Every structure is written in structure tokens, then in C-alpha cells.
């Protein structure tokens, strides 16, 4: 036997490694119990590391949000400036994480919470949306009490910021969802009076008039994401089927006939009166159709109005107008931008100060006037806001009902929301299958 024979050639070594890997795989998947508990230990170790890391940066307040562009960035800057004025001694770090709406922020937050390295606070939606953060949110009931938030916020805010019987978050501002915006000159050319549109069928008639009287798109829609259609469904259902039908849909006992009737109206609108390129454009491009006078109406949350304010020579009441979504007069479909409080907080004291600040008049005025939203407090001096937001605030304070939105966290848990959007994507993004979409929506909320 020579040395040469006994040596493994490289090829054999590769072969052996492959076999060993397979054996290892088999061994690991076979010995489930033991490996499993090892894995558990591993993540426990991660927790420990996380809190060690926190020890190093004890008092720095770290807030994550997704307001990176345009209005949002300016609003966030104003918020930080106001915070610095109010609490000059608190070390802070405000980290914007933009991209994909809130998706990148959500992914970063999910990873950090999972790794036991939570930020001090992060921006998100309250309501059923809090369900996905079950077990990792702390309590801020103390802040609500000491600041007297329960007395100054609307009742819906008080309810929606609690989960499992404790306050988990503090609201910063609110957008309105049941909005119909229009280009004044286009509707005038068509001879449509938007204020007379008090039902979904009246809206459809008006869209027909615009189509026959003008060259403009009756209703512009940006459907490259499914969320615009889902939120249009919510407003249409609220307007056509009423508050009770909408609320029972959210509560998981949908009336199938109501859902079907809503989809029938939607199919009529989306099938006949929207722009041809709807499925390949997003909100920004769609909204541009209103600004440029290419379209008569758009349904959106009132963040759309932010673009009008930034457009040149495009003024409220002169060039663009607002109408509550037909049929939902007297209602304000709620949306909240809130700050959530993770448990195991790296800077509990500073975070509570920040939470108290977020719900204060100073913060809400500073932030919302730039963001194009309104304060969630009802006792705020609105003089710094433009006329449109002042009207919105009046509607907000005097609304008969404030139903939660469907697409932005307040109506259903995030998993249901994903299922609803799956249905829109596969059944209702052209061609419009009313039967399948109705079935899909009923199934999605029913469980």
C-alpha cells in the first residue's frame, strides 16, 4: 500500500462531503426534538444579545417611520423640530425607512422585534392591525392617563388604540378615506354638480355624463397596486349599503347580498369609466390626471390633496373640489397614523415622553399641517391649517359615525387584509368577476 492509495483524491472528498451533508440533513430532520430545542436556545441567545445592545444605548430614543418623500418628509421634519423644542434634553434618532409604502418599514420592524432588538417606537396603524404585534407591544396606559388623552381624542381613537385591554399606541394624525376629489373645470364642462351626488347610482350617472359630454376620463384609478381598489370597495360599500352593512362586514358577519351589490357597482364603474392604463399606473400618476384636467373624479384618502397643494395654480374650490364619497355623507372613514410602543423598550422613559408629545397639540399641529392630515384631538386650534383641512376637521369632529377603514389597518387584521387584496388581484383587476370576488371577500372576512 502506497501513500498514494490511502490518500483521498479530491473527487472522493467532494463525494464524501456531499454524502455527509445529506446524512447531516437526514440526521437533523430525524432528530426533531433535540434539534428543535437547540433552535429555541439559539433564539433565546438572540434575545439576550439584544438587551445587551440596548444597555449600551440606553437613553437614546429611536423612532422608525416611513415618511421619506414630499409631504411626509417635511411633516416628519416639523415633528422632530417640535420635539426638540419641547424636550431639548432627550437624545433621539428618527430613522425614516421608505420604500413600498410601509412595506420596508414593516419588514425592518418585524425583523427587529423578532430578534429582540425593538426600536423605542415605530409608526404604524392601530386597531386590528395591532393583532400582528401580539406579545411584543407594551402598555402606554400611563401616558394616556397623565396626558388626559381619553378626554380630548374622539371615542374611536380611544377604542382603537387598545388591544387586549391596554393602550398600546398613541395617535398622531388622521386621514379621511371616504373622499371623492374632482377637477372643477371638468365637472363644469360636463354640467355635473358634484354636491348633488348623494348616492353611488348618482355617481355612476354623473360618470356617464362626463363620458358623453367631455373627452376627459370620468374617474381616474391607479390600480398597479390592489390597495386602491380595496379602499374603493370600502367607500362604495359604505356609501351604497350603509354603515351597518359595512360594519358587519368588518366584524366578520358579512351580508353576501350587500357585498355582491357593491361589487356590481364597482364592476360598472371600473369596467366602463376609468382610464385604460389604470392597471399599469399608481396613485401618483392617476392623481396627476386630476391636476392636469384629464379626469373628472378620483376616489382616494385625503393624502391625494397633498399633491394638489403642491401643484402650481391649483387651488381648493377654484380648481379642485372635495365631496364626501356619495352615500356616505355625515360619516368620516377613519385612518390613524400612530406610534406603537414595543415592550422590552430600550428607552422606556424617553419613549413615554415621546408618546406624550405625539398626542400633544404641539406635535399634532406641527406634523399634520404638512402631512395633509388632521389632528386626532378635537380641541386643537386649526388656524394654521388650510381651508380644506379646516373643513375636514369640522367634519371629523361633527361626524355622525366614524367607521374604521378597510385597507389601512383599522378594520381588519393584516392577514385578512392580505387575503382581500389577493382576491382583488386575482378576481377583480380586470376582467371583473363579481361572483368570485364576492365569494372571496365573504370567505376572507368570515373566518
Amino acid at each position: 500500500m502506497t501513500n498514494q492509495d490511502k490518500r483521498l483524491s479530491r473527487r472522493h472528498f467532494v463525494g464524501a462531503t456531499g454524502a455527509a451533508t445529506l446524512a447531516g440533513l437526514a440526521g437533523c430532520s430525524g432528530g426533531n426534538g433535540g434539534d428543535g430545542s437547540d433552535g429555541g436556545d439559539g433564539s433565546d441567545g438572540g434575545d439576550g444579545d439584544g438587551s445587551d445592545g440596548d444597555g449600551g444605548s440606553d437613553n437614546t430614543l429611536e423612532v422608525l417611520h416611513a415618511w421619506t418623500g414630499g409631504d411626509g418628509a417635511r411633516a416628519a421634519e416639523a415633528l422632530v423640530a417640535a420635539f426638540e423644542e419641547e424636550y431639548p434634553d432627550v437624545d433621539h434618532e428618527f430613522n425614516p425607512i421608505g420604500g413600498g409604502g410601509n412595506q420596508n418599514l414593516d419588514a425592518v420592524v418585524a425583523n427587529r422585534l423578532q430578534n429582540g432588538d425593538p426600536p423605542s417606537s415605530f409608526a404604524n396603524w392601530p386597531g386590528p392591525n395591532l393583532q400582528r404585534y401580539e406579545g411584543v407591544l407594551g402598555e402606554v396606559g400611563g401616558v394616556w392617563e397623565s396626558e388626559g388623552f381619553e378626554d380630548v381624542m374622539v371615542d374611536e381613537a380611544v377604542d382603537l388604540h387598545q388591544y387586549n385591554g391596554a393602550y398600546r399606541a398613541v395617535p398622531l394624525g388622521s386621514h379621511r378615506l371616504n373622499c371623492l376629489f374632482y377637477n372643477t373645470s371638468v365637472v363644469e364642462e360636463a354640467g355635473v354638480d358634484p354636491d348633488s351626488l348623494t348616492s353611488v347610482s348618482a355617481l355612476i350617472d354623473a360618470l356617464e355624463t362626463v363620458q358623453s359630454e367631455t373627452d376627459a376620463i370620468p374617474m381616474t384609478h391607479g390600480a398597479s397596486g390592489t390597495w386602491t381598489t380595496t379602499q374603493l370597495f370600502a367607500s362604495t360599500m359604505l356609501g351604497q349599503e350603509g354603515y351597518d352593512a359595512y360594519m358587519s362586514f368588518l366584524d366578520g358577519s358579512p351580508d353576501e347580498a350587500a357585498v355582491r351589490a357593491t361589487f356590481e357597482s364597482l364592476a360598472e364603474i371600473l369596467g366602463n369609466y376609468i382610464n385604460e392604463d389604470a392597471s399599469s399606473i399608481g396613485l401618483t400618476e392617476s392623481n396627476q390626471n386630476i391636476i392636469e384636467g384629464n379626469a373628472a373624479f378620483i376616489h382616494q384618502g385625503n393624502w391625494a390633496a397633498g399633491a394638489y397643494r403642491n401643484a402650481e395654480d391649483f387651488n381648493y374650490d377654484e380648481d379642485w373640489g372635495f365631496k364626501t364619497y356619495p352615500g356616505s355623507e355625515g360619516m368620516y372613514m377613519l385612518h390613524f397614523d400612530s406610534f406603537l410602543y414595543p415592550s422590552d423598550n430600550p428607552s422606556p422613559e424617553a419613549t413615554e415622553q415621546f408618546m406624550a408629545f405625539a398626542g400633544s397639540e404641539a406635535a399634532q399641529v406641527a406634523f399634520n399641517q404638512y402631512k395633509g392630515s388632521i389632528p386626532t384631538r378635537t380641541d386643537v386650534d386649526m388656524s394654521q391649517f388650510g381651508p380644506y383641512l379646516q373643513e375636514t376637521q369640522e367634519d371629523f369632529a361633527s361626524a355622525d359615525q366614524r367607521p374604521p377603514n378597510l385597507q389601512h389597518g383599522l378594520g381588519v387584521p393584516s392577514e385578512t387584509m392580505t387575503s382581500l387584496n389577493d382576491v382583488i388581484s386575482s378576481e377583480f383587476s380586470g376582467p371583473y368577476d363579481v361572483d368570485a370576488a364576492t365569494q372571496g371577500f365573504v370567505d376572507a372576512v368570515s373566518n
Partner: protein
Amino acid sequence: MTRNTDTGDDSGDAVTDGGVAEDGQRSGFSPVAALNERFGSDFVESSQFWLPPFLLVGLFVYGAIIWNLLISLTDFTGFGTPDYSDLDLQMYSRALADSGFVDAAINTFILLVGFTLVTLALGLGLAILIDRNIRFENTFRTIYLLPMSLSFVVTAQFWAWMFNFNNGVINIVITSLGLGRVDWIGNPDIVLWAVMFALMWQFAGYAMVVFLAGLRAIPNEHYEAAKVDGASTVRMYWRVIIPQLKGSTISASVVLMVFALKAFDFLYSLVGGYRPPNGADILATKMVREAYANLNWAYASAVAITLFVMTLGIVGPYLYYQYNRGNL
């Protein structure tokens, strides 16, 4: 990797097979010498170079894959720690019952096969044309290869503009030919092919370079012999040259297939979110949606493992082929 260390050894190195080490008939038993004898003369001395990366890759790549597999067998959702005490294949049966998953898997497969085949054909065609001693050969080569150097983020935005319904170049060309506009992104029957076309545009240059290298490795005598025998150009390529490009074809297709599986970046950038246009959902986007939009970690892991198995199904035969040829 995790074999038991012989308790008798005072050295910290793992002895993989005690039985072999025993046959040393020298005066003193030395595990180092035994290891060197078994695996090559520098095994222990060189270990400081290969062992750290070996262990790191083992832990962070293969360890992570195994952990992922374990998580896919749990019911882990939300935050906290997974419960490993109850392992089953529930997530996989859920996947099979989920029409979204099935659609995504089918789309992934279509993308994989369609994109790879067409890109290979296109790359081969370009390579043959460039190999015909044309003028400005290098310039053409650079032009064709350039798209590959761009990131998916750039090309996705670029194609989003190309495919734009109203102002996109493609629709402008089509309408100027007297045809109607096509909704490339919005029509669920078309969008996957549009995405495939964009990816093809990006990677045909890569396939071309691989084939060009293969063509250049074929001795001139083969061309000359074919010509002497009176073969037409087409026949020469079909019978003599292309059969010799088997190696290039295989290596190019493996790389292309892996790119097809990674089309996530492209789709994400195309729409700026986790949900691709209807009709273009693939397993990678589905996985990220389940993980980060729904926090269904176990389900997302099951999707990931499916994707991993698909990849392995592609790369495995290639590795085996190379191993058989003695290239590994």
C-alpha cells in the same frame, strides 16, 4: 461536519475515522500525521485557511437552510419563539391547497423554463453572428453584454416605462404600425411574458458571452473540415459546432435558471411592492408577502423550502454531471 470527536485524541481536531489512523506503524501515534496521510500532505497545516470559511459557510448557509426547514415544520406565526415540539407537514399541505401558491409555483416554473430556453437560443444566435469575424466585434459584444451589468432596479424601472400603456415606447411603436395598444403590465395573460421578455433582454448578452467562449475553444480545423466535406453553413453549425457547445449550454442554463428564480428583485422594483401585477406572482414574492405582510413565518419557510428544492433540482444534476466528468 458534526461527527463525534474521538475521546482519546488530545488534539482538538476532529478525527473523522479512527480506524484508518491506527494503521500507522511508526514509533509514535500522531493524529496530525494521520490526518495528513489521509487527506493530503497539507491537510492540517492548510486548515487555518479553509477551516474558518468552511465553518462559517456551514453555519450560516447550510445551518440556516436546515433551521428554515425546521421552522417550516412548525406552526410559527407572529412574534415569539417557534414551538418545535409539534412538527408536521401541515404547512406543505396548506400550500398545496392554496391556489395562490399553486399559481405562483406554476408561474415560477414557466418563467424558469421559458426564460432559460429563449435566452439560450438568443445568446447562441448572437454568439454565432459575432463569431463570424464581423467588423466592430468588440463594440457589439459590449453592447449586448451591457444590460447585464445593470441592476434589476434600473432595468425594472426602465421596462416599466417601456411597457407604459399610454407613453411607453413599445405601445407607441405598435400604434404607429396601426395596431391597438396592449396593456402589457395590466393584462394577467400577458404580464408574465412581458416580464420574461425584459429578463431575456437583460441576460441574452450573458448567454452570448458564454457561448462565444465555447465557440472560440473549437479548433478552426473543425470548421475547415466541415467546409471541405461540403457542408452548408447551417448544416455545419447544426451538426458540427453546436453539439460541441454542450458544456457551455449547461453552465449558462444553470446560471440563467438561478437568475429566473431571483426575479423577485425585478418584480419588486417593477411595482414598488411585494405584490406583483396579477398573473406574475412567483414563489419568491409570495414568500416575502407571507413572511413580512402576514408574519406567517412557518408558511413562508415552507414556500422557501419549495423554492430551495426547485433550485436544488436544477443545480443538483449539473453538479452530478460535472462530478462525473471529473470537474469537481
